[in-house]
């Protein structure tokens, strides 16, 4: 199927999210859509998949104009969208998840669904048991499930919104393989991302969006500098790795054992020197999250010792960890990090040490203005945090951290952020390191782990590797360890 979007306009209030976008994609093409957060790429995809309606403009499928008012209209026309957070039903069985929204008689035939699911899987080498529950799958597997479901419903156009966020390296490889195969079968694949390497490695052509407009389209061979310039209007490059002279050990972790109903970690040892950055790598659910939360004091280890500059913290409540100078920035910014409904100023008031009963509004607003400036947050003191974009929420979270800090724990610090925000956030974190704060962070982005860490711990199914020197490690080695190869236990 050929897809054409002609003169699409869409405004939200004063923001012109899509300004006269025209794009045409031929059958069998993998089209990359590149742009930073807020560039308008998601808006265009929502228009195509029926989530929202364009103010003006046409959607042509095989040359015929169609109206798409709801997501189910879209799938009837053969357009399926894979959302960044998989839209499925976690507590249900895979087969039931497939059935919801599938037209048919009152009593569905589950056996038949299982059969066609298996046939589809065989094509792509996926391996999902129709009788298992969705919530037992990894993000990558849920993605596979959703692709299978859309194909089963007869999708001829597949839109993928940031599909490589939160999945492992091997799952990404598999995804790309699948997408290439589907394109060969004549499907249209629209791949929305802000990750340059993903888009360059996969797409037949790339359309770059900036501030609601289509800046241009390019075909391979791609020139990275050129793409970056199109995205941002200027060239930015990753800054050189700077390493701080190591000083005395800050955090000592000895024989730490952690257990919850999903994973067991036995006898992990690590000494973090001050000013050091430790990256935790591993497939999601390998234990790195539990490890980090134990360091934060949010999870009580079943054995072992945690010492910060010699002071024993094991078994102390979260507040003692905080008072000792440990801060934790969770991945779920809106759930655990910020409080929806409160303004930026109110967040700063809450994060400060409180003295007095009444709030000094004026002072609070002054402080928050200052911080908004230093941290380059796009928002006003009265802006509610849920109105901020992901990157600005992350900046606000960093702005709330106390000074001085001994240990900063971060979970996916740049997940879902565009390149510019990521670089900016890391420059802030590096500044912290210069003030002798040590950082332990989790990331699924191997490049990020390798580039910013001094040492790396790899987690595999609750096992923890020896600390690796980041400078002497390659992506390949890291990938293999994450996949469980070369683990001695």
């Amino acid at each position, binding site marked *: 199927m050929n897809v054409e979007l002609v003169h699409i306009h869409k405004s939200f209030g004063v923001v012109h999210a899509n300004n006269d976008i025209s794009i045409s994609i031929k059958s069998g093409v993998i089209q990359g859509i590149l742009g930073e957060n807020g560039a308008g790429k998601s808006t265009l995809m929502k228009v195509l998949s029926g989530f929202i309606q364009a103010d003006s403009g046409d959607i042509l499928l095989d040359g015929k104009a169609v109206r798409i008012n709801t997501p189910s209209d879209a799938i009837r026309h053969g357009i399926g*969208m894979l*959302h960044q957070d998989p839209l499925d*039903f976690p507590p*249900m069985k895979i087969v*039931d998840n497939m*059935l*919801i929204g*599938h037209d048919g008689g009152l009593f*569905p035939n589950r056996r038949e669904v299982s059969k066609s699911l298996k046939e589809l899987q065989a094509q792509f080498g996926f391996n999902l048991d129709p009788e298992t529950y969705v919530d037992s799958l990894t993000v990558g597997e849920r993605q596979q499930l959703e692709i299978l479901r859309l194909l089963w419903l007869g999708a001829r156009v597949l839109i993928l919104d940031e599909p490589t966020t939160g999945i492992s390296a091997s799952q990404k490889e598999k995804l790309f393989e699948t997408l290439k195969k589907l394109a060969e079968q004549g499907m249209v694949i629209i791949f929305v991302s802000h990750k340059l390497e993903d888009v360059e490695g996969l797409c037949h052509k790339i359309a770059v969006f900036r501030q609601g407009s289509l800046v241009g389209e390019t075909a391979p061979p791609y020139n990275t500098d050129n793409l970056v310039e199109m995205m941002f209007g200027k060239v930015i490059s990753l800054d050189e790795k700077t390493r701080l002279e190591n000083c005395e050990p800050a955090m000592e972790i000895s024989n730490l054992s952690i257990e919850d109903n999903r994973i067991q970690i036995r006898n992990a040892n690590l000494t973090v020197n001050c000013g050091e950055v430790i990256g935790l790598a591993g497939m999601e659910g390998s234990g790195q999250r539990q490890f980090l939360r134990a360091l934060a004091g949010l999870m009580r280890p079943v054995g072992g010792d945690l010492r910060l500059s010699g002071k024993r913290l094991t078994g102390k409540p979260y507040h003692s960890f905080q008072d000792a100078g440990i801060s934790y920035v969770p991945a779920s910014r809106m759930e655990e990090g910020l409080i929806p409904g409160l303004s930026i100023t109110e967040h700063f008031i809450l994060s400060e040490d409180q003295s007095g009963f009444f709030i000094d509004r004026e002072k609070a607003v002054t402080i928050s203005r200052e911080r908004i400036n230093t941290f380059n947050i796009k928002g006003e003191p009265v802006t509610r945090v849920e109105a901020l974009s992901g990157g600005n929420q992350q900046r606000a979270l960093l702005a709330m951290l106390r000074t001085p800090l001994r240990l900063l724990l971060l979970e996916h610090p740049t997940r879902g952020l565009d390149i510019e925000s990521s670089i900016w956030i890391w420059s802030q974190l590096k500044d912290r390191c210069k003030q002798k704060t040590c950082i332990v962070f989790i990331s699924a982005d191997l490049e990020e782990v390798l580039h910013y860490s001094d040492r790396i711990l790899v987690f595999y199914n609750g096992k923890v590797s020896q600390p690796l020197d980041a400078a002497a490690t390659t992506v390949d080695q890291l990938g293999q360890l994450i996949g469980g190869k070369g683990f001695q236990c």
Partner: protein
Amino acid sequence: MDNNTLVGLAGILASAAPVVFAAIGETITERAGITNLSINGLILLTAMAGFATSVTTGSLLLGFLVGALIGAFVSLIVAFSSIALKQSQVAVGFVLALMSRDLSYFLGNPYMGLSGPRVPSLPIPVLADIPVVGVLFFRQDILVYSSYILIAVAYIFVFKTRPGLMLQGIGEQPATAYVRGANVNRLRYIYTIIGGALVGLAGPMYSLSVKVGWKGTITGLDGIGWIALAITIFGGWNPLRAAFGAYLFVLLQWLGLVLQPSLPNIPSQVLQVAPFPLMILTLLLVNLGNSEWVDRTLAGLPEEVRRLIAKVLRAMRTTPPAALGIPFENE
């Protein structure tokens, strides 16, 4: 088994029928993502209204019809305020529960103590003559038979049919359900009204069959609705388990009555009230596995014992629909 016990047990099935209706009605509503807290008052109000209608018109059918209509209407208020006005379901439901209860006492005054019609017993030919089973199940009235049917139909609908799967979907992940083509809010209206109508049938089932008549504040129905809400949770939003909970509750009530003569030292009020706290305790017990504290205590036990207990706890514990009580807005 002697005949008295058998008749007693048959009585349990009969008195549990309205509780089954109320608990399954609430189960269906909550599956759609709406908590209808008004059902305690609703049962009282429909008991009174159903009885009053039947006394006035002489028609049993009209009594039940009025009950279902009132149930549907009050639930429509809950649905409207939570879906269209985005108000707290707890606040609105609670106020409606209190209001319906007081309304039933106030409006029911003229019908206090009147004698009215009663749903006749309807033994099913052939089946009623089977020993034990016949007495137990098939010498009941049509309401009890419909409670059997309701359990089966509700279970099959929720878990085996396409619309039933979508019902689970809108209570679990409404955004996903919307993408799959559901009109989430319309479905929520429909299921809240259906659930409310089923609860509305529970009232007349009491006043026209189980506890015939209307006696105002001493009718003894106050509290049943709260128990039905607890049973919905106990039942893990599964009609079959909810029905089991209803039978368990009525069994406890019956035991209270039966044991009374043999336990003269215990005041009779204690035995009458005991089923209520017992039911709540069961609810707590069933969900014990959800607490971190239990996890930690179990960690100290030997591996095999821990595995076994954890398995039992996991099988018992229940998780509410993820979007229960949360309004749905598509962007």
